[in-house]
């Protein structure tokens, strides 16, 4: 599926960014997210995936370049209005917060005066945490913690979800369920998703993959083309073997590397 035919939600044009004064991290990065598009963000550790998501969500301001949300500059939106359009799930979660799971999840409703259709209970149900609603984050398992914040993000009900490694710590079931859920939301509400992840076999499920290396785009397009043995070797500095099964989807094996 090409994204050219769909309207663009968010466009990044020639975005540059750096944490330090001496070396630049993100350099002239451009890509855009169409309506209903699911984009997998792949790249080695430290290649800049999280930074890109923070730039796209407006948390970090680019040194130069320009970001447009529905055609208007991202930073011209009121915070609250933007929060109804974009929600962002950070990679690292702080577990020392004093709130209960229910309180945490319900924060997803903060941008709204009149809560949208989904209720806190629906969101808790969705991630299987109804029976933990009174617990504190510190008393949950790693996967349960991640799911708490996923529920909050989903409850926020934005059209564009920027998810930084949401699958980390999730078990098989919830990995599958999250992707399934996002697909359902796309069908119902035409949401778009940008997801940073490391599991190439799951990245193969996305229509579009952005492969990042050293803050620059190494490849962008359908995973069948982008996740080639060569590009992967280039991006991750590791040898993999692509196995095609039944002609449909590819699987990646790194068996011989261990």
């Amino acid at each position: 599926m090409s994204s050219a035919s769909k309207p663009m939600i968010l466009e990044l044009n020639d975005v540059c960014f750096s944490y330090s004064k001496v070396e630049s991290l993100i350099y002239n990065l451009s890509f855009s997210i169409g309506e209903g598009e699911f984009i997998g963000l792949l790249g080695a550790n430290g290649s800049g995936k999280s930074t890109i998501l923070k730039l796209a969500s407006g948390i970090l301001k680019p040194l130069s370049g320009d970001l447009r949300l529905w055609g208007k500059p991202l930073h011209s939106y009121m915070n609250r209005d933007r929060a109804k359009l974009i929600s962002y799930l950070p990679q690292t979660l702080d577990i020392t917060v004093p709130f209960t799971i229910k309180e945490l999840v319900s924060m997803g409703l903060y941008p709204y005066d009149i809560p949208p259709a989904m209720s806190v209970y629906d969101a808790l149900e969705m991630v299987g945490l109804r029976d933990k609603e009174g617990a504190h984050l510190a008393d949950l398992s790693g996967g349960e913690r991640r799911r708490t914040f996923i529920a909050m993000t989903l409850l926020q009900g934005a059209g564009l979800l920027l998810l930084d490694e949401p699958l980390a710590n999730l078990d098989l079931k919830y990995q599958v369920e999250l992707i399934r859920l996002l697909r359902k939301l796309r069908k119902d509400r035409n949401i778009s998703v940008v997801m940073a992840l490391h599991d190439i076999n799951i990245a193969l499920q996305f229509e579009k993959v952005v492969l990042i290396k050293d803050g620059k785009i190494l490849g962008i397009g359908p995973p069948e083309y982008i996740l080639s043995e060569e590009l992967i070797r280039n991006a991750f500095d590791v040898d993999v073997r692509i196995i095609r099964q039944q002609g449909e989807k590819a699987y990646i094996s790194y068996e011989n590397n261990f």
Partner: protein
Amino acid sequence: MKIKMLIIILISILIFGISLVIGPRIINPFDMDDISREILFFIRAPRAVVAVLMGMALGASGAVLQGILRNPLADPYILGISSGASLSAALAILGGLTFLGTFTVPVFAFTGAVITGGIVGMMGWKKGGLWPERLLLAGVGLSFLFSGLLMLIMSISTDEGLRKAMLWIFGDLSMSEWSRIPYGMAFVTAGTVISVARAKALNALILGDEFTHSLGFSPRKERSVLFVSVGLMTAASVSLGGMIGFIGLLVPHIMRFFIGSDSKLLLPASALGGGALLCIADLISRSILPPMELPAGIITAIIGSPYFLYLLRRKNVLSI
């Protein structure tokens, strides 16, 4: 939760009512002679109102600051605001300044507090935002500096002046009068209302700046708004009646034991709890050893701490 809040509100109103009739002499509000009327309307009533206002300001400020600084030890005085106020008030007292009449000391205290708050804010500011850790350390540093200077001035001035200035700092509600209340009330009400209105943003700030942004708040703006409103509340409270410890630090923790950490409930509960506690502490401090009065801050600590320690023993600690 709703019910717990209702109980807290009812208890607060009750305490306020009781504090009007009880004292060195008990006043029957339906049968008052001239002196009783004078005592009730011009001595006790303004005093109880000041106690409630100060307690509210301190309780709410404490809850807000523990949140934005993400530190369970934060209290309204940690930002050095009170040291600034005390220094400035002490300078007015020691300098014998009286050009604003009975308003001189409160006005000086307020000004000192606001200036200090401004300096702490400036020091906590870096790269276009207030940083919790910087604010904390800047507040503590300035606090030490100003109380050092205060003590220096006091120790090189006459002994008599020392005692007077010290007593002011200990907190005193006895001079409360109606004329000062409108100003105090304006600041405290505004501060409390702003804080409660920004409770969601405060919750988000506790989660971290990334979530705050994502949930539709500007971390920098929210932190600054809350900081300013806390600063004004604290300044108003210090200028109403000096420094009263305990409330700003421990009332939010006590309330957390009861209604949890959600700022939407915690802020109003801390304000009410602070108001009620200071009102009852003042009631005790003026009634227990008549005709002497004890500083209200002492009673606040003496009745509050054992209760807090009891709760601490019984309940689980919630962080922040």
